[in-house]
């Protein structure tokens, strides 16, 4: 899941300072599922912005809210928003960075404002709203060799041959030893599975050219 957080309201109010009309566009994908920017949050955002502008003594503008099933789908996004494009000069997307750019591509003459910050690809593993990063979309998955624990996303140094000297009692030097060292978790996992030979295996320098340029799958 793409994990995101809503931007501070003051920042969004700054962004919309000079706009004439605004459509808040929620997304029922990742953003909606975890109640960051779905239908309900889009409607709440509309009200908050109206209140915020009033408090700041700004002239009221037309603000409405709508939701797209998945803002990362160009066709769905374009068809959902198109009927409303004449009424609004600006869109506020509550989706991830992909959603913002999908709207921008579909309606190149309109201003699109991001209402969220896209954080990472993560798992909800504890309470609702608590997430941990699990994947960096590196394009060359090593999870078979690492006991189902990703060293690229979960090791602060993305080491392929860990651990580093910063591991103490199975914890990581980054985050004041509160976070598990990924290579300690990998060690524990491979040991349990009787596959410690994979731990010692040398993984040579990686071909990062894949990530060094924008990717496309056609």
């Amino acid at each position: 899941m793409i994990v995101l957080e809503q931007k501070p309201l003051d920042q969004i109010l700054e962004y919309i300072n000079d706009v004439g009309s605004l459509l808040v566009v929620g997304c029922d994908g990742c953003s909606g599922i975890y109640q960051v920017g779905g239908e309900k949050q889009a409607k709440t955002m509309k009200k908050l912005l109206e209140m915020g502008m009033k408090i700041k003594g700004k002239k009221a503008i037309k603000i409405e809210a709508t939701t797209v099933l998945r803002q990362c789908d160009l066709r769905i996004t374009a068809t959902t928003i198109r009927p409303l494009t004449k009424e609004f000069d600006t869109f506020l997307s509550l989706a991830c960075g992909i959603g913002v750019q999908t709207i921008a591509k579909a309606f190149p003459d309109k201003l699109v404002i991001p209402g969220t910050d896209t954080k990472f690809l993560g798992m909800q593993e504890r309470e609702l709203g608590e997430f941990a990063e699990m994947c960096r979309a590196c394009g060359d998955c090593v999870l078979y060799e690492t006991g189902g624990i990703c060293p690229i996303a979960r090791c602060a140094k993305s080491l392929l041959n860990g651990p580093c000297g910063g591991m103490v009692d199975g914890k990581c030097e980054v985050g004041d030893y509160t976070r598990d060292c990924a290579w300690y978790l990998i060690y524990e996992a491979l040991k349990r599975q009787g596959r410690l030979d994979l731990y010692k295996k040398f993984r040579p320098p990686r071909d990062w050219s894949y990530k060094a340029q924008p990717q496309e799958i056609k």
Partner: protein
Amino acid sequence: MVREAFSNLMRELRAGNFVYTGEIEPLKTVDPTEIIDVARAHIDCVIACNVTDNPKSCGYMSSLVASYIIQRETGMEAVYQITVRDRNRLALISDLLGAGALGIRNILVLGGDHTVLGDAPGAKPVYDVDSAQMVYMAGRMVDEGLDVAGNKIETPPKFNIGIAGNPNAAPLEPELLKIERKVDLGADFLQTQVAFDIDTAKTFVDATETFKIPILIGIFPCKSYGVAKFFDEHIPGVSVPAELLETLKKVGKIEDKKERKAKIDEVNLDFFVDLIKEIKKTTNAAGIHIMAVGYERLVKPLVSRL
């Protein structure tokens, strides 16, 4: 294949002589006076001095430049520390070629403390390669005359390649597997993080014995009670023995500065002479890596008593 001994350090290790190495920390300055003075304080005491590369992720004078200056000005052989934190593979190749051209014969390959722990915590960490991959890269440059991508190097560098190990790692097994991985890749020698007691040193040397790599145990003389206390409280995984802390605290209260310094030196000498003698007697360690950063005055009296 056993790599040729290119450095004095490696020749001594191969000869089976118990060796001492020191440590020099370039700081945030362009003035080399201090590092030259520190290097001079180590002459005739140690065979080589490590030159640190942005320790604790603080941006200091380049360890390559400092290594060169020390070798040129004092004749002290450098162990050029190079971390993979701040440079991608192109920059690492470039620096290694430069080091070779400047007559550097030892490198110590390190991962490097994470950037968020340093004095510019907003820096983007690089880690294009990790320290094992760097051992592989450097080894390939030296042994095969090829860079990491297989491109030919016209005149390859001649380095002996060192690695670090943490005898305090808990659990120790992943640390040992990591070290073995690097030994298989061609590491020539290993210097450890700080050990304050014989059990830690002995356990580590015994556990790495089958790897057949010379181990230099790291020690850290404490210039003051404050330094020792800081080390004890803030360097994870390392505890300074309570007795040493207590004694340093006691002598730290001596009002006369000259007398206090002399007493602190005595405490350190008593403690570390005993520890080193015990290491020599009861383990197969190849030497001692003395990290007397800011406390170089102790190196000469320490080594002379051994």
